[in-house]
Structure formats: structure tokens, C-alpha cells
């Protein structure tokens, strides 16, 4: 078996309407891979049932290196100080590294 790598898992809880904004910000940092899950919940701004677009939440998971994490955290901090109601936290994870990419024609490469 190949060696396990240490990475960071960043979790962002955001209103559904802000998903696009967050994803585009990630892209600016060169991060094209992420996983999204639809969620509901509650917080200081009340219930978020997920039933209306204007009332929905998502959880975004982004696996990345520590260096990139630092940049993205600064972005998220900026978002929060502008007033956006996102939550961002991270953890250490141990991950099976991706298969060594054999370069092929026809597909772009992301993080």
C-alpha cells in the first residue's frame, strides 16, 4: 500500500446562495476540487429549513495542503468581516494519496 499523506480538511457551512461565491473564491486560489452536501439547521439567524433557495444551507468540504489552507482562511475571514454568515473550521486528516496521474489527453487537471 502507498504511504498515507497528511492534509487538512476545511469545512465551510454557508447559505446555499453563497455556494457559488465560495467556490469561485476557491478557484482563484487554484482549488478546483470540493464536495458539497445540502444541509439544514439553526443559528442566530433562525431556522434554515432548506425548503426555499433563500433558506438553504450547504456544507462544503475541501481537502487541501496546509499552505493553501492559510490563504483560504484569510478569504473566509474577509467574507465574515463583510458580514457573510459562513462558518469555517478545519481538521487534520490522513488520506490515501491520489493515484499518480498518468497524463492523458482530454482532461484538465485540478488540485
Amino acid at each position, binding site marked *: 500500500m502507498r504511504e498515507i499523506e497528511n492534509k487538512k480538511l476545511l469545512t465551510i457551512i454557508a447559505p446555499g446562495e453563497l455556494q457559488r461565491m465560495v467556490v469561485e473564491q476557491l478557484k482563484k486560489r487554484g482549488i478546483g476540487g470540493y464536495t458539497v452536501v445540502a444541509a439544514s439547521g439553526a443559528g442566530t439567524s*433562525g431556522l434554515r429549513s432548506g425548503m*426555499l433557495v433563500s433558506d438553504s444551507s450547504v456544507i462544503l468540504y475541501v481537502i487541501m495542503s496546509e499552505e493553501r489552507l492559510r490563504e483560504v482562511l484569510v478569504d473566509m475571514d474577509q467574507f465574515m468581516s*463583510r458580514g457573510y454568515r459562513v462558518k469555517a473550521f478545519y481538521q487534520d486528516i490522513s488520506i490515501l494519496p491520489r493515484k499518480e496521474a498518468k497524463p492523458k489527453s482530454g482532461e484538465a487537471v485540478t488540485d
Partner: protein
Amino acid sequence: MIGSAASNLLDPAVLFFVLGAGIGLLRSNLEIPSALARFLTLYLLIALGLKGGAALSTGGLPAEGILAIGAAMGMATFVPAYAFYLLSRRIDPFDSAAIAATYGSVSAVTFITAQQFLTARDVDFGGYMTVAMVLMETPAIIMAVFLATMVRSRQAVAKAASAPEYDEAFEPLSTREVLREALTDGAQLVLIGSLVIGYLAGTEGKEELLPFTSGIFKGMLAFFLLEMGLLVGRQISEGRAKLDKALFAFSFLSPPVNAAIALVLAYMIGLQVGDAVLLAILASSASYIVVPAVVRYAIPEARPGVYFTMALGLTFPFNILIGIPLYFAAAEYVWP
């Protein structure tokens, strides 16, 4: 008027709204999957658009229609302006801007329910009213964004004086970004697209769609109102967002006031009674789907717990239960 209100309350769609609210207030654990509510929202927008487009393609756009659209646009500019002016003296200016956008815009579901109400009473209305509805969204949002930008630059000046380091973090969105968001809002595009398709599609195409857009429409509306009732009931029973009294008053008073202004306007420009009632509904309803979605992005400083709760939790039930029959009764009283 009392008869009209009572018969409105016996409409199955309205009853389902009441049922949903009751279930929500009882804190039942009824869980309506979010995908279902989104499905019904899209369905209602598509059906509304197709019907409006079809009506336009047969009825055309008479002078009356252009006047109605003009009046609607006027209301969409006037309501946010006066709302912001009144509210910002009392509450947070960003919240005020967000509420202004919400009430300047419209609630498609209230509009649909009002159309059903009129149809059940054999009162005619024009397809251009759907166009009017569509066109009201944008001015309200744009006004609110400009108001928020104004507030922001005022605050930035104040802050720069007291806490210069905070300033940096403060890079609001460019107007371009906000406009992109407002103009590419999904619900809005689906509605506009359906309107155009309803207009373009041949008679045959329309007829094939009828069982989908008209046959099951009432049932789907009832289902959606059940869900909205549930949401409202939960919001109320949760009672998290304790609103300022002024906001309570605004939620219940601005609808009839706006409706009254709209009815006067409609009377003056000579609209028929059905169009007048719909104009009143457009003026008095508040957006809880499109506008909050855009505002959350464009005015992040405002609190959704305030503007969303007011639009969905207070003004929406008011209009569904009382507003529609009330404005109709008023119009019937005045119109010849």
C-alpha cells in the same frame, strides 16, 4: 366582503396553508424534504410563466397593459424608497435596505393564489400582469443595493476616523457583481424563460402542456402552501427572531397601505378590476424567495432573521388569509 373572505378561507389551497401552519405551531416532527419544496417552487414558476406567456400571445399587450406595467414599476420604486426612509430612522440601515427590497418586490405565490381567487370568481385579468410581476423584482433590488452602498460608504468614513485598521477588510462587492447576481437569479430566469416559451409555443404545444400546467396546478399549489404554512408555523413557534415592534407594525400595515395606493393608481389609469386587484397584490406582497436570496449575497450586513421572517412569517400569511379578499372587496366596492 365577509362572504368573500369566508369563501377564500374555504378554498382548499388556503386551507392547506392553515393546516401547515397548524402543524408547524404544534411543533410536529413532520419533515418535508427540501427537494420537494424546491420542485414545487420551480413547478409554480414554470406554470405561471407559461400561462402568462400564453395569455400574452393571444391577448397581446394593449395600452391598458402598458399602463399596468408602468404602475407596477412605479410601485416597485416608490415602496422601497419610502420603506427605507421610514425604517432607517428606527432600525439598522442595512436591515432597512434589505426590507425595502423585500417589500418593493413581490411574492409569486401570493400572486398565483390571487389569480386563483379571481379565476374562481370569474374575474378576468391580463397576461401582462405576469410581465409586470417579473419586472418588479429588479428595480427593488437595485434600489436596495444602492441604498446599502450609500450606507456603507457613510459608515466607512465614520469608521476610518475611529478605527482605521478595520477599513481594509471592507471591500464590498462591485456593482457589476451584484447586478450579475440579481440578473442571473435562478428563479427569476426560469420565470422569464417560461413566459417567453409560453409566448412562443404554438397552440398545439400549449395544449399538450395543459394537463401539466393547468390540470394539476391547483393541487400542486395546495401542496406548496401546506409547506409554506409549515415553515411559517415553525418560524412563529420557534420565535427566535424577536422582532422590533416597529417591524411587526410594518409587516402588517404596509401591505394594506401599498394595496390602497395601488388600487387608487389602478383606478386612475383605468385598469379593469381584475388587473387592479393583482396590482394591489403585487404592491402589497413581499418577496421571500428571490429577493432574500440575492440580498443575502448583496447586502450581507443585513440580517435574514429580520427581513426573511417579516416577508414569509408575517406579510405572506396576512396577504393569503386577509389581504386577497380584502383588496378584492375594496376593488369591487369602488369599481363600477
